[in-house]
């Protein structure tokens, strides 16, 4: 497989005070590879260093040390940008331009031929659902609309590789679904997509591989299915009409147990315990509302990461939730 992105020991120290004596390491020797045609999820909690990484890759900030190559060319080589699309985090654009004008401006920066550009703009506005807003000034756009126009401008040059910093943020459920569909259709057309997020379900639906960033360091990287096989699938059982006594008994079986509006939420480690939980509920004249598997892997990484940073001990995967 061809490498589309190769990051090698990328490190970034931000200077915090004026004189540059105090520093904060936002990125610590990050190395990873993304292959052509992949949808790659770049995960991390707030402040993990996702945006920092992407900004370095786009040449907006300079790394303290380390190198990176995009499509076989070093990031300092601006010619590689011809084949790259970029959606910044919570993007903001020239508010005095209309959607069409803005996309024309972006297309002109790529020196795209006029007639070709006109067609592509129409197509992209349709893709992101902004046909109606084509001639509206961006100052009148809502947050979700800005996100959409941001996606459109990232695709204006029909890029081979697209970088998106939290593409789903600011979007309603319909918008999220649409962005997922866009990403999937891009992958189907052979594009490589690298996107950051802290929303696990997006990753589970979309990604071939993921990297998980924890306080600037790589905490894990690999194929989603492989990573998931390594961990047990936990299950979640929702039961109602469960009395106190039953809750106590269930507590012995479960990893965690929690009262909710619809009943009790019982988490168990594996299918093996399912039978006993159901029995226990029925014994106490309760009813089962639902049973479903929960893939906890990604959540584990998040929670473990946070626990480690707090007290240096691995927390229990399901405590907290």
């Amino acid at each position, binding site marked *: 497989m061809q490498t589309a992105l190769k990051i090698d020991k990328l490190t970034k120290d931000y200077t915090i005070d004026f004189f540059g004596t105090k520093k904060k390491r936002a990125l610590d020797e990050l190395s990873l590879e993304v292959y052509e045609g992949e949808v790659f999820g770049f995960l991390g909690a707030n402040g993990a260093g996702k945006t920092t990484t992407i900004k370095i890759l786009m040449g907006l900030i300079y790394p303290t040390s380390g190198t990176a190559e995009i499509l076989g060319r070093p990031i300092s080589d601006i010619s590689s940008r011809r084949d790259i699309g970029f959606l*910044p985090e919570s993007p903001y*654009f020239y508010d005095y331009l209309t959607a069409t004008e803005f996309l024309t*401006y972006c297309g002109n*920066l790529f020196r795209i031929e006029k007639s070709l550009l006109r067609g592509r703009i129409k197509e992209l506005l349709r893709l992101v659902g902004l046909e109606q807003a084509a001639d509206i000034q961006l100052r009148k756009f809502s947050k979700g609309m800005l996100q959409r126009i941001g996606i459109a401008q990232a695709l204006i040059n029909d890029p081979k590789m697209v970088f998106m910093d939290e593409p789903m943020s600011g979007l309603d459920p319909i918008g999220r679904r649409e962005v997922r569909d866009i990403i999937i259709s891009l992958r189907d057309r052979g594009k490589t997509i690298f996107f950051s997020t802290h929303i696990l379900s997006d990753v589970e639906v979309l990604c071939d591989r993921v990297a998980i960033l924890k306080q600037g360091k790589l905490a894990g990287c690999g194929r989603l299915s492989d990573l998931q096989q390594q961990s047990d699938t936990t299950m979640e059982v929702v039961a109602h009409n469960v009395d106190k006594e039953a809750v106590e008994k269930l507590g012995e079986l479960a990893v965690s147990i929690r009262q909710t509006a619809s009943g009790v939420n019982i988490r168990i480690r594996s299918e093996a315990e399912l039978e006993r939980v159901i029995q226990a509920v029925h014994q106490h004249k309760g009813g089962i509302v639902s049973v479903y598997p929960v893939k906890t892997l990604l959540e584990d990484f998040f929670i473990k990461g946070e626990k480690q940073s707090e007290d240096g001990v691995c927390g229990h995967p399901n405590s907290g939730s």
Partner: protein
Amino acid sequence: MMNPVLVIALNTFRESVRDKVLYNLLLFVLLLIAASLLVAELSLNQEQIVIARMGLSAMLFFGVLIAIFIGIGLVYKEIDKRTVYTILAKPLCRYEFILGKFFGLSLTLLVNCSVMLVALLAALSVLAYRRYANQAFGYINFGVLPAGLLIYLELLMVVAIALLFSSFSTPVLSTVFSVLFYIIGSLSQDLLVFARSIRLVPAKYLLIGLYYVLPNFSNFNYINIVAHDFHFVSGRKILFATVYALLYICMLLVLTSVVFQKRNFK
């Protein structure tokens, strides 16, 4: 297919138009009309002197305001609103961005100054015609044209100065620095005279050095001469001022590009 510098320049021009920068022209024209009505009592020569001087001074004043205030926003606003992220991730060099911004505002000022000059000439012509009817042509002060050109060059230098400051400093500081630079630059002839009169050698050379480093706007100020002598500025002076301005602007743009190239956009 346009060069990225041109693409950015045209967009910058469009921005200033949509931000209604050119509305200052209305004010200028109103000012001219009012002044023309008021000078009706004066003799012809004075009429032309007063209007030419007022017109050119207003052109310089409005121009400097635009050059400094819009000039500082050129880069600062893009960084502040993070629009720069999208643009600099496209295939263009950072210096091209700076050049585009500079030429964009230069274009705005060109339109601004041209319209003002045309309006000024129209006012002067009307005044001359009112007295001399068909012989009016010989009495129109066409000296305002070269004087206007020099003012335009001066404004371009101010833009380049504002651009430099705003590429690394906050808007408030940039404004203060730019205004300070402009004032000192306008008085630089006095600075030289003052420097030469000083006995203390280090201070003397420091000030003389400053004189050469700071922009010398007196090369461009022919407002009084043109208004009074009713004459053209000599070709040699125009040439000298042009070369001086271009060199100074190039130097500032290179410096700005270097500073901008090194920046991390946070």
